[in-house]
């Protein structure tokens, strides 16, 4: 039974990694934590839902329509909110994105009401079919989520390594001022990064809608899960995010075996334990320890 729980946890972790991808990417490039992240994921879920219902198409087709919309939204978000926030100090991005999250949540409530929705009915068998291996069942949708997460993280990794734009993003992330000196327009790079981040958020939002039901106020929980995955895996590392998501998923699944509330408590517990472990291993500051960890292999 435990092996099954761990396996289901790994699959669940795939979803968390997918969800955390955009948050991690944005933090890695711009050093901001977007508190509207979860709300934007839920917003994308509603967009996909609306498009799918409007034209009576599969959610995956609808997603293809929504992706460019969200990329544009990301570009706009950077130009209107983040860019200005970044210039006015450390606390402003947190305040402005928190305000944005409240606006999105409540606008969604006004538009769509309090009913919970789901895209699961739109994909027929995929939502509940599974492959059975012995006594262990692997959900098709859960496996697809994990595959998409790995593909997306891998794709981003290759993009950052191998392309000219990827190198520009990495240079800007390391030191925006110096990047400007060698001819990189850091504002443009940030705008592209925000667009990419929101594309990944749109994909995550779609899978949120496919795998479970959601309502206009589901964003804050998603933000917390995404953030926990990012922190457990080590901030700023894309592959770390995958591991973080899996650790979170496994912990939650094991917790749910112990008590009905154990699902959430175990997740938060693992998150806090990882933070505490980092802090005590470093003696004082978790960042010092992280920095030394990053330096040793090089």
């Amino acid at each position, binding site marked *: 039974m435990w092996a099954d729980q761990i396996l289901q946890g790994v699959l669940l972790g795939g979803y968390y990694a997918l969800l955390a991808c955009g948050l991690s990417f944005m*933090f890695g490039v711009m050093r*901001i*934590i977007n*508190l509207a992240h979860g709300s934007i994921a839920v917003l994308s879920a509603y967009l996909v839902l609306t498009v799918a219902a409007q034209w009576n198409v599969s959610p995956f087709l609808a997603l293809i329509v929504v992706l460019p919309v969200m990329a544009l939204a990301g570009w706009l978000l950077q130009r209107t*909110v983040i860019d*200005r*926030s970044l210039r*006015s*100090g*450390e*606390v*402003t*991005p*947190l*305040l*402005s994105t*928190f*305000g*944005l*999250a*409240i*606006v999105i*949540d*409540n*606008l969604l*409530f*006004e538009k769509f009401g309090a009913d919970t929705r789901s895209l699961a009915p739109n994909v027929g068998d995929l939502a509940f079919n599974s492959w059975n291996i012995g006594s262990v069942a692997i959900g098709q949708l859960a496996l697809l989520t994990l595959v998409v997460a790995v593909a997306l993280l891998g794709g981003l990794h290759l993009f950052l390594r191998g392309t000219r734009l990827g190198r520009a993003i990495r240079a800007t992330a390391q030191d925006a001022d110096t990047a400007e000196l060698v001819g990189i327009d850091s504002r443009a790079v940030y705008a592209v990064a925000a667009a990419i981040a929101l594309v990944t958020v749109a994909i995550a939002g779609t899978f949120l809608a496919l795998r479970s039901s959601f309502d206009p106020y589901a964003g*804050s929980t998603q*933000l*917390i899960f995404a*953030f*926990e995955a990012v*922190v457990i895996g080590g*901030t700023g590392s894309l592959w770390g995010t995958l591991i973080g998501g899996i650790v979170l998923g496994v912990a939650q699944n094991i917790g749910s075996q112990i008590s009905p*509330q154990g699902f*959430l*408590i175990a997740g*938060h*517990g693992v*998150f*806090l334990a990882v*933070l*505490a472990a980092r*802090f005590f291993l470093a003696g*004082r*500051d*978790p*960042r010092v320890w992280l920095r030394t960890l990053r330096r040793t292999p090089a």
Partner: protein
Amino acid sequence: MSVAAPILVQRWSRASIVAMGSLGAILIVVACGPAFLGPYWTDRLTTLFIYVLLAAMWNALAGYGGLVSVGQQLFFGLGAYLAIRLSHAGVEVYLALVLAPLLVGILSLPLSAFVLHLRGGEFAIGMWVLAELGHLLVNLDGLINGETGFSLIAISAFPPDVRRELNYWVALAVMTVLVGLVFVLLRSRVGASIQAIRDNEEAAASVGVRVFRTKQIIFVLAAVGCAAAGTMTLSTLITFQPHTYFSVQWTAYMIFMTLVGGLGTFEGPILGAVIFFLIETIFGGSGAWYLVGLGASALLFSLFFPRGIWGALMTRFGLQLMPVGYRLRFPGRS
């Protein structure tokens, strides 16, 4: 102008002396409030005192300490919960309402040792996770029994009129003491230290500021203040349902009041609380559009008026009624 002309370093100006004097007079009049306000306004003003307390606490953390917390509802909820628990254990009910925040203060000490090592967004969401965890753990208590909740039964022993007046005075007294404490603290060495840390932690440490201890003082004070706001709210609502108290909406209110009034100014959040109170009184304070308005204001103020209404007044007129800083005057020039 000669170089030798002395520059005056002032804390008090005529305006601020008059303001502080009249504040004393206003407080005395307000303290007599229940005698002439009638039940509706007595209740409303009790709520206003709670808002002022919340705004001042969040501002002390974020505006002066640079510590943006999205999880202050943790202390708000814990305060109310512990008051229920103390009262259930037989402690006199109003004593419980005052003791619970102090217990939360003690509880926040070990917590601070942990979270104050987080920075920026990590601290913000770290606090939120703690608030969620606190909510889940309180739900596990058999007395609270999940979202069924529990009531502050003992307070029903007081007739409603007496209770209303007691709530009013306790809230007024707690607000005055705690906001006054923030005032005194910000004027002390701690005030200078915490602002130095906010502006540059490494530089502050390098000139001998005790970074951790200073943050801890502000953190614990804000925890006690938010917990007191929680117990005061409990005294007016009587029922305790965990999800109303551990709701992130409380933090949203605090952020709105502080940003609109003026983040990092002492008077601003008080003004912000009054504005929030008026909006709520006039528009009824419910519905999604109302919250859209609050969120949009927070967004716009953070982007375009980071020092809020009071900050704008301060720069425009050099106004400072409750001085926590110093000002320079050049006698040769004016």
